[in-house]
């Protein structure tokens, strides 16, 4: 963000003591907000380093009195984290492949190709946006059972292709690519498949990257649906955390915090590294809220 010449409050306003005080109070409010945002994240990191008696003491301390780094080793070995991490990545990669192939091809066809009954098909897809997912959550579950997909990754991967919101974003983006590129590729004898994979897909990398953020967030976050759909050994990390950490009765609080910290660090690091990029992508998908 480049320096702005002024905001709602001008430099002249700031010379008045009342306004100045208000301005400082407002900044203080933002600082308090920032502390509230960071505190729960830091405290779980630090609680993971304390002795169990210290975590349970009242009033709670911020910095550990003695540092127990071995808690994180215990936490790492408490459940098979690498396996669940692998499952989460399987879901992410599979969902991404389905998104590119199924939704990418469909968006390309809707945007740049001749399709019979194009607008009817487009509305067939978009209509699903108006039906809230919760209302057919249970039939969806029964449907997956009927199709015999229950327990396998396919039960997550294939429905990932039924996302009208992503389709809308992809088509809108592809509408902005000039059609002449594809026309000239066709004249030069490129097949339609090459037209998609060698021209449309590379040119749409920005929107696919944005979608990959959403898909990753879903894969990492979603615990409810996978815990009902996937079998025990296919469960993603978040579902496993809920089953074995949140609902565990005999698990020391410090180890619990250590596990939670391990799980939240990767997404936070990814966010901090790709921050600019992610926040820009967010405006694009702002509709999702």
């Amino acid at each position, binding site marked *: 963000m480049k320096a702005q010449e002024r905001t709602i409050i001008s430099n002249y306003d700031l010379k008045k003591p009342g306004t100045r005080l208000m301005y400082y109070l407002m900044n203080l409010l933002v600082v308090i907000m920032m502390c509230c945002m960071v505190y729960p994240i830091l405290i779980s990191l630090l609680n993971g380093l304390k002795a169990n008696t210290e975590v349970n003491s009242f009033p709670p301390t911020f910095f550990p009195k003695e540092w127990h780094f071995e808690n994180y080793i215990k936490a790492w070995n408490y459940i098979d984290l690498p396996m669940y991490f692998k499952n989460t990545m399987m879901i992410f990669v599979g969902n991404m492949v389905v998104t590119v192939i199924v939704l990418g091809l469909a968006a390309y066809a809707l945007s740049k190709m001749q399709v019979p009954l194009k607008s009817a098909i487009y509305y067939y897809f978009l209509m699903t946006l108006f039906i809230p997912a919760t209302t057919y959550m249970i*039939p969806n579950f029964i449907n997956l059972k009927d199709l015999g997909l229950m327990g396998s990754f396919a039960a997550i991967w294939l429905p990932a292709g039924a996302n009208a919101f992503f389709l809308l974003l992809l088509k809108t983006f592809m509408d902005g690519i000039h059609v002449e590129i594809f026309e000239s590729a066709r004249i030069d004898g490129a097949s339609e498949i090459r037209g998609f994979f060698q021209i449309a897909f590379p040119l749409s990398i920005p929107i696919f990257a944005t979608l990959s953020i959403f898909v990753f967030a879903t894969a990492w976050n979603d615990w409810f649906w996978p815990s009902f759909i996937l079998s025990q050994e296919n469960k993603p990390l978040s579902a496993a955390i809920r089953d074995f950490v949140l609902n565990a009765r005999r698990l020391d609080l410090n180890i619990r915090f250590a596990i939670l910290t391990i799980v939240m660090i990767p997404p936070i690091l990814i966010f901090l590294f790709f921050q600019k990029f992610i926040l820009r992508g967010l405006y694009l998908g702002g509709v999702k*809220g």
Partner: protein
Amino acid sequence: MEQTTAVPISKTKPQTQRPGRYKRYVWGFIFILPALVIFTLFLWLPIFKGVLNSFYDVDFVKGNTFIGFDNYKTVFADRDVMTSVRNTLYYMGLALAIGFWVPILFALAISEMRRFQGFARVAAYLPYVVPFVVLYGVWRWLYDPVGPINAVLKSIGLSQINFMVDRAWSMASIVIMETWQSFGSAMLIYLAAILAVPRDWYEAAEIDGAGIWHRIRYITLPAIRNQIMLLLMLQLIATSQGFQTQYAMLDGGPNNATLTYALLIVKYAFVRQDYGVASALGVLMFFALSILAIVQYRINNRGGVKS
């Protein structure tokens, strides 16, 4: 969604080349076919099955039997349904009262900051990337009777609050936690809109003698009106379906105080194994929510979010 206006040129061209057109029809259809199959199998099929199942007694072993409107009768006879509707409305109302204005306030405050704007933005968004399951674990401890929030309350001389167990507090506790987590993303949308307001408008208003409150009231807020309406609708749609936090944190308790409508659907299906009634509840919910969806569609079409 905006679309570029450069597209129509392509429409006139291909009509003249007859042989290529047929071939292109085939390829276009092949490209769209996987999406058609998947949308049909995983969206439209369950949607219609849901309507159908609501008239059946669903049994995975013996097969379904048609029972007419019995499922709907069960729904209207169940007192939990009314409780859950009331809880859902309460939840939606609380989320508006506690959470809706927060992102607007902080977007205004952060847009005014002369320095460290980037830090504030990142900090506000940070909780949004924390996985839900971690959130539940951490906040259970924060809300604990011997947790840090109660320690602060005690140190300033207030009495202890049982955030989770007290019926009067349980829903509010969930809303506070969710606001903490998600206001950052709404704030970024508001912030982008506020920063897009031309600076000269403020300049002109100031020369005309408008105070700061008047500038906010008559320039900034009208300028982000579309975003406010859009996010209001999105929040209502999201909260009307909310159940995951209630389920994970309190399992609908204490004494059904956080039993939302969607959570009741889940409980009918996975606890009482009554998939027919769960489907009927879903169908009823659809009719209630379609009103919201229509309103949102109209706001969207007026060009809510500029990307």
